[in-house]
């Protein structure tokens, strides 16, 4: 918990002691608290079944906590029809399985759905669709039926459908799952662009290498609880925590430890978690400038 005072000030989305159990008795969330700050790139990590998707469904008001509170910009969520409409136009959620989200066979029709629901005029919606197609790099798919697209292409259509609503927060449930490395890179670059334009980006993922170099903040969930909130550097310094939550260590950090063990790097320095950090450490030791 780095700098609590600061995080309170910039807090955009907050959960406080939320509890949720599924009808079959499975615990979804167990007094979970977390804070998302405005304009950040946030990674939510944790093993399968740790509550990531359940948390996301709470953040856009699909699920309502049995106890506890969720606040957006300091105000508790309003679960009325009107309140939810407003919330969902400001917090976009991209689902993991594109076939769940894409309901129209036409790429552009599917993208136009959200903007029209927000009450935009057809002309404005059309503009949003064109822009979303452009930004996500799928303008060439405009006239292709959804059932003819590849998995990665469908994924981008899903993101375009949310982007077109211009939400302040965009939440993505495992957007990199099942993608090939190039596809994953495209999605990450796209998310960086959205973030640079001011959107707060929250995503769940399992690749710790990506967490290390992409995320500014990390939230670790374990059995429906928050067990860590902070930056990647301090997360990866906690070996026991990583182990307990079934998380891997990023390869540059492992490499660093190996190099220290081999006596090639001095111990005790701040351990690097990404490739650039590792290269810098090696540089400092071996290429005296």
């Amino acid at each position, binding site marked *: 918990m780095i700098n609590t005072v600061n995080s309170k000030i910039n807090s955009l989305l907050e959960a406080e002691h939320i509890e949720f159990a599924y009808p079959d008795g499975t615990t979804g969330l167990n007094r979970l608290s977390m804070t998302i700050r405005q304009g950040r790139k946030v990674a939510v990590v944790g093993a399968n079944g740790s509550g990531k998707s359940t948390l996301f469904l709470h953040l856009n008001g*699909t699920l309502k906590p049995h106890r506890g509170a969720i606040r957006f910009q300091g105000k508790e969520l309003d679960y009325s029809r009107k309140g*939810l*409409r407003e919330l969902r136009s400001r917090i976009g959620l991209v*689902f993991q*399985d594109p*076939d769940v989200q894409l*309901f129209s*066979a036409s790429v*552009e029709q599917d993208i136009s759905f959200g903007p029209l629901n927000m009450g935009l005029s057809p002309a404005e919606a059309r503009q949003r669709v064109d822009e979303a197609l452009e930004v996500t790099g799928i303008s060439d798919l405009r006239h292709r039926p959804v059932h003819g697209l590849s998995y990665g292409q469908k994924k981008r259509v899903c993101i375009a459908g949310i982007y077109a609503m211009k939400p302040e927060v965009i939440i993505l449930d495992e957007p990199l799952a099942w993608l090939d490395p190039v596809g994953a890179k495209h999605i990450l670059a796209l998310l960086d662009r959205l973030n640079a334009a001011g959107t707060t980006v929250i995503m769940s993922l399992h690749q710790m290498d990506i967490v290390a170099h992409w995320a500014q903040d990390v939230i670790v969930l374990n059995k429906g609880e928050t067990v860590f909130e902070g930056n990647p550097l301090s997360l990866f310094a906690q070996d026991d925590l990583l182990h307990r939550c079934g998380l891997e260590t990023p390869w540059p950090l492992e490499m660093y430890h190996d190099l220290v063990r081999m006596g090639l790097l001095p111990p005790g320095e701040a351990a690097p978690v990404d490739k650039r950090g590792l290269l810098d450490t090696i540089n400092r030791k071996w290429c005296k400038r």
Partner: protein
Amino acid sequence: MIFTIDQWAWSNGLRDASPRRKGLAALFGLILSLSFPLPAVSATVIILAALLLTVKARLPLQTFLKLMTVPAAFLLTGTVTIAFSLSPVDAVWQTSIYSYMIGISAQGLHEATTLLLRSLGATASLYFFVLTTPMVDAIELFNDLRTPRILTDLMLLTYRFTFVLMETTQAMITAQEARLGYTTTANSFRSFGILAANLFIRSLLRSRDLYTALAARGYEDELRVLPRKRG
């Protein structure tokens, strides 16, 4: 066959033509062939449809002919019986079975050909529409014609999820086959039962997920979408 039609609907030369005009053309052909019992009229409609499809929509003639054979086979079995009669007066061809005379009368033949061609003309007209118009455009047309939204929304979802269901079924069958699910008759029966039951449950779960995903984008009562941009 459904997939052939769908693929052409999305990739033919007339895809971006106005669905209204394509609908009108199909309707015109349909009415012509149904209301005039003249083989010449029906034949003209068929040839016109074939010409429009091959020249304008750039559909290979072979594909069109292949598609026509399916209903043609049906129609042929139905109309052949009309051509035959007992002791025909103006027989073109006849044969005796015991004491009965069975044959094809000139009138019967004429009636059968007329009926066959009329039906084929109507079929060709409809083919023209479905082969040149993507389903989403057809739904848009139905919306323009004031079809109740609940029906067109259902059409939209049915169309999209037909493919999802097909893919799921195919994937499940492949997975069952990989574990020897269809090696014996007994296995096949059991596997098929499991497949059917699971597809049903999956469809239910999927419909719930779909609702959640739609709600996340502000769905309330109808699926509002823009008309597809054409051209």
